[in-house]
């Protein structure tokens, strides 16, 4: 764990991994784990991808991936179980869960924080076996962000650009080498198992890592007053009219929820496969949809015309603060600028704080 002043470090959990050795390290890892890493395609999109061959892809640790690793732990659509009925009416269920030990490599700090949030969501009121099974099999190797992107505000959300816990290993780019922080036990195991890749970090490396961290903090271009917005929401000073004004602009795309690393609303439905067989699917859903709350018989307790986005913003910025003492917006900035009606979380925060 990094201490605030960069001194008095326990040197046994700080290592150096030379960049030259990264690919061969990943090749090793791949022998024991599935490897998911950010890969840039020829069109220029960076996506977390299940890597077939470490030699045939371009790893991209700098640009933010199109999505976080949410779709791997909580897929857009997954089969919960299959069911069968027989002529005598019998009704049977067979649970399905696919999960393999997987290393998620190159996860940015914000996205890793989102995983920590999802851990709570999927185990607080009930234990969700599908998420937790995949999570149990997940090894998280994060990378700190030396260069925040234009829409990033993890500094305001306190989820980056570097982390102090939650990762198995955390990498910091120091030019020709990575500084490696060891977090959880699996990280320690990996370093021990493939120790020939890891040299103990020198005092110089520790200083440079700390300096990198400080510099990164100074590079954010967006000023997002999240704390202030939370304070105003808590105090109840935000007028109710704000919701109808913003909701009118919501065009029901669900993009903000789907792209968000911490949005975990879902729906469950049956898909018929034949007369007597089917599967129960869980799929992403968005609280901005009017069908999200509409009950059988068409009564809807939420007027989505005027409240479409109320729950989304308040859940992230107020309810989770009341419950967990921190907002569930992790400041990744993915939803910024993507809203069809121009209502994204930064707009919202600006509106609340002005």
């Amino acid at each position: 764990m990094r201490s605030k002043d960069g001194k008095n470090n326990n040197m046994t959990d700080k290592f150096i991994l030379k960049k030259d050795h990264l690919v061969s390290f990943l090749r090793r890892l791949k022998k024991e784990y599935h490897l998911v890493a950010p890969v840039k395609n020829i069109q220029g999109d960076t996506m977390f991808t299940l890597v077939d061959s470490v030699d045939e892809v371009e790893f991209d640790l700098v640009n933010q991936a199109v999505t976080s690793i949410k779709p791997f732990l909580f897929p857009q659509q997954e089969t919960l179980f299959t069911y069968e009925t027989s002529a005598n009416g019998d009704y049977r269920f067979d649970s399905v869960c696919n999960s393999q030990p997987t290393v998620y490599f190159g996860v940015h700090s914000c996205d890793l924080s989102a995983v920590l949030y999802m851990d709570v969501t999927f185990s607080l009121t009930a234990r969700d076996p599908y998420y937790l099974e995949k999570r149990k099999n997940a090894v998280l190797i994060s990378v700190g962000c030396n260069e925040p992107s234009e829409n990033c505000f993890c500094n305001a959300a306190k989820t980056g650009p570097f982390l102090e816990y939650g990762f198995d290993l955390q990498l910091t780019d120091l030019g020709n080498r990575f500084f490696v922080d060891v977090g959880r036990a699996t990280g320690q195991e990996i370093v021990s198992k493939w120790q020939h890749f890891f040299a103990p970090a020198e005092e110089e490396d520790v200083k440079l890592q700390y300096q990198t961290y400080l510099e990164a903090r100074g590079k954010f271009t967006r000023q997002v007053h999240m704390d202030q917005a939370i304070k105003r929401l808590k105090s109840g000073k935000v007028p109710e009219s704000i919701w109808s004004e913003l909701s009118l602009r919501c065009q029901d795309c669900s993009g903000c929820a789907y792209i968000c690393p911490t949005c975990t609303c879902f729906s469950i439905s049956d898909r018929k496969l034949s007369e007597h067989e089917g599967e129960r699917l869980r799929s992403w859903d968005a609280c901005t949809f009017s069908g999200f709350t509409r009950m059988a018989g068409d009564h809807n307790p939420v007027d989505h015309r005027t409240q479409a986005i109320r729950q989304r913003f308040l859940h992230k910025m107020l309810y989770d603060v009341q419950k967990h003492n921190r907002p569930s917006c992790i400041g990744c900035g993915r939803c910024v600028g993507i809203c069809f009606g121009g209502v994204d979380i930064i707009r919202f925060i600006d509106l609340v704080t002005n």
Partner: protein
Amino acid sequence: MIHTINQNIYLPRPAIIKELIVENSQIKTFDLSFVDEEYNKTFTYAPGQFMMVSIPHCGEAPISFSSTPSRPGTLSLSVRKAGTLTNAMHELTEGAFIGLRGPYGTPFSMDALKGKNLLFVAGGIGLAPLRSVINYCMDNEKDFREITILYGSRLPSDLAFTADLDLWQKRPDTTCLLTVDQAEPGWNGHTGVVTTLFDKITVDPSSTVALVCGPPLMIRFVLAELSRMGIQDEDIITTLERHMKCGVGICRHCHMDNKLVCVDGPVFNRAELRNLEVAELLT
């Protein structure tokens, strides 16, 4: 690697329809038991809780218990035709299989009702969860004081649970009054919305707990009326209905401001609902 997960909260258990009671043209009561005999013996629930019911190809929906755990071996769900799943349920016959998981939700706090006069106000299918409480109280009558039941429906032919209503009306320590919005030939009873029955009863606000369930509009008027009568917010208890998918506090379909009806409810007292954006209470 495909394997079965132990203790999968999403996996229903097969159950069989033992008996089917037609309450009216819209409501049927299903007496159920799990196919797994062992599980039947250990299964318990509390009034106010609900089960997630599965029908093949139709998905799931939350349905409140209408039976009472004080009568072991009975597990009844009363269902009004409203959507795809409930319509499919109405097509089923005795001996048919359905899937069940639960029980879910925060129940009525029966302890808090002890020693109180109980006023039940229900409309339509809203009597189902209250029936669970009423019969529980009757089975433990020494714990509770006077019981008053006000029940309204649209038409006389819509009155559900008539067997129970008959029994309740016959009990000396119980007042059970019925009303309909619109009379039909042969109806000699009261006509008018359920709040018009309040004139016929006397209520001691300090010792009474009111339990209310029914359509949103009814809940709104009844709650307002009860407050006007001087009953404390903590003693006005209602149970809400919402669209639900998981039933266990994850999917968030039943959100109501910072509450989730499936885990924080469906039973709420009025004090808890104050300051919330609750559709039933908005004017």
